[in-house]
């Protein structure tokens, strides 16, 4: 099927198999390998991207064809002109990552969370990120990272 997906501001027109997952479309057709795949059951959230500005979606659970005509933002689209997004800065400052594999999904889920709730409590953050697994950090510093970004007022 022929589709056109706007990813991080650029439109990608491709002819894809209808079974192609959005995650692999982003990784292999758009060359955006920051979106990771960590499970087969929509459990881990390594593949979370933001659709249409504020919707966190698991890119392994969407077909690329479902993203036809939509706007997708991946981790590669977070920084602007070389300046880190406050969430990226927060994860760096607060040691919110170790192996880095879950980090893109965590960042994008946090981005959508702050879009809907710019001043989340710790409980809000923990609930908002419950679809994203991390094996390294125990989440505590991830919560702090999101709080730092929220306190900066730039969700």
């Amino acid at each position: 099927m022929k589709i056109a997906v706007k990813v991080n501001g650029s439109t990608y027109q491709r002819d894809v198999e209808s079974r192609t997952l959005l995650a692999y479309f982003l990784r292999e057709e758009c060359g955006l390998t920051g979106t990771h795949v960590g499970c087969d059951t929509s459990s881990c959230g390594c593949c979370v991207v933001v659709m249409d500005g504020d919707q966190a979606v698991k890119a392994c659970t969407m077909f690329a064809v479902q993203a036809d005509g939509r706007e997708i933002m991946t981790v590669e689209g977070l920084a602007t002109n070389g300046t880190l997004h406050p969430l990226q800065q927060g994860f760096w400052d607060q040691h919110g990552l170790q192996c880095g594999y879950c980090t893109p999904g965590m960042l994008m889920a946090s981005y959508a969370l702050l879009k809907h709730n710019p001043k989340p409590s710790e409980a809000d953050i923990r609930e908002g990120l419950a679809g994203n697994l991390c094996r390294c950090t125990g989440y505590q510093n991830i919560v702090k990272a999101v709080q730092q970004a929220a306190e900066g007022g730039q969700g």
Partner: protein
Amino acid sequence: MSAQATAGQSVGVAMKRKEDPRFIQGKGNYVDDLSFPGMLYLALVRSPYPHAEIKNIDIAEAMKVPGVKAVITGKDLEAAGLGWLPTFHGFDKQMVLAIGKVLFQYQEVAAVFAESREAAADGAEVVEVEYEPLPVVADPFTSKTDKVLLRPDREGKTNHIFHWEVGDRDGTARALESSPKRISQRMWFQRCHPAPLEPCGCVAYFDTMGRLQFHVTSQAPHVYRTALALVTGIAEDKIHVISPDLGGGFGNKVPVYPGYVCAIVGALKIGRPVKWVESRTENLTSTGFARDYHMDVEIGATEDGRVTALRVATTADHGAFDAAADPSKYPAGIFGIVTGSYTFPVAHAEVDAYFTNKAPGGIAYRCSFRVTEASFAIERGMDILADELGIDSVELRRRNFIKKDQFPYPSALGFTYDSGDYHKTLDTALEKIGYAALLKEQAEQRAKGELMGIGVSTFTEVVGAGPSKHFDILGIKMFDSAEIRIHPTGAGIVRAGTKSQGQGHETTWAQIVAEELGLDPQTIMVEEGDTDTAPYGLGTYASRSTPVAGAAITMAARRIREKARKVAAHLLEVGEADVEWKDYKFQVKGVPAKVVTMKEVAFAAYTNMGPNEPGLEATYYYDPPNMTYPNGAYIAVVDVDREIGEVKVRRFVAVDDCGTVINPMVVEGQIHGGLTEGFAIAFMQEIQYDSDGNNLNTNFTDYLVPTSLETPHWETASTVTPSPHHPLGAKGVGESPNVGSPAAFVNAVIDALSPLGVRHIDMPVTRDKVWRAIRDAESGKA
């Protein structure tokens, strides 16, 4: 938390991580991110049966699938002499693709190579395999009977893999018999799985020079290179192993897996790059699991609570192949640490391991080779003993601790503990959590019928494998190495034989070099994981990086400093003996005004070195004189819902003593992560098999990883007792929280349930098990 170090103190500084900018921008470089022109994808056909004879494999339909280029089977590999690969433990071998029969569910049976991952999966779907099911051995106790022989390929016609023992069998038996108090408990440390979020995978190809380029998720790339050379017969210089960014490892990425061998064979046979990346299900069902130790723990004591003897007899389930990846002289790992933090005058430990129709493994999941099992056994055992004696478990531990002035302490099972101050570490934890107030509250809660528990674990680990006289893998001694080059401008590069999987080596290794040489850690680059450039090392697992490679880096830096001293003497126009290293600079003794910085010396080493050899670089291979013994005191507070059996972890305090800390931010992060994995093991995680050998936990909906919602808030603190033999005094920490915490959680739950008479629940302590224990206890009372 995030001070930036410059020239000056670097070790001990909470420096932000140098590797993070690429990870937070989606620029990490993981195996599955790699792509090469003409790359094929490999999919594996796996067995639905745990034990079956293979009558026939028909690949005809698979070859018709568009995009499929080749299918290989065990017979093809056997013909090429590649049917089996040695396990890292060295006493067994593992089928690459099933030959004649399958021995566990999800075993690799055939390999399909195709133009896309989807075509490979389509091809694998239609490989027709005819199986004749055989009787299944799903537990080690059935295996013990040898009624069904699982491995007729082996010389000894038995399912028994090995018997290992350490200590004084007769003396321990006598001491136990004559002890006025005695407890015994069967504990099963369940089968669990490290499940790093990035599954295992590789890309293999032969370059224009005929050299194997092998990108792989490996915690030990040099060992892979040597093992591949030995298995394939390819000369070792024609093998280039690159372990790029790893999305976690936790021991899972130590063994060599069949998919890797198939990818290499495919690349050779077809002449194109081959990528293999396993699915989560493949990861959980076929790669290295951990634990599965059935431990009978006995402790003897005097009436007043002095321990007299410890005996632990373990039945171990190793699955279909002995792929435990332990050092060759230690088939049961370093289980001998089971005497823990206590002065046992005599002890005996033995392990008997058996084959079963389950996935192979027994690897060290965030653990220094069976240390987690040992730590759990003794820390649960001490609580059961305290209960038996009617003594507070904290008081019992205190009475039996190795005292500060007893180090170096020779344990009953042969270790020489390097250092510790167990009383101080425990007191720090008790104070932080407010133990006295908690006991008071608990008494009040109990009076109301509420189930509140306090669980303590005061563990000692043994890490940093290891001294060459004892430790080797496939005969290769377990040293580690570092190579440092300081460039003319005072920037530099350090390469080590380790491989970070999230531990932050790019930051902490730079901090060590910066500290030793008075340079800016921001301009010290760290490179690992490339066997062409890194000096030979045994890799990162078993908390060995800082104890072994960290020491190698320190010693290499000190070699550079000695060389630099000669250049400094030339610059300062004095004799070398008149130059001293002070405040991160060289100065003329007694003349503080006459100084040169390392940066100035570095430039001179290339431009104005005087009579000295040009350049400024050094290599060091470090053979540790002893292991290191990190320890800690952990306290968990839980509330148990009597009606539904739900356990809530109200508080958790972890006080760790890992010796000198290189980066407190990184150490705290490691502790948070390890505690979360310990929490998962204590309450959620198990790879279960039914009696027919079916794996029941094949994905993340059945094998649970805690989310941000379940994970407790962690409170941490530290004591610092430097290791006397490590050049920095560091001991390693990555695994301590995972080793020490499961017992604290379970002790807390049992403490909560103790008024009902509950004495033990095997992990994972699920709501269902707790509810049943409460119900059984209450109905027993009624």
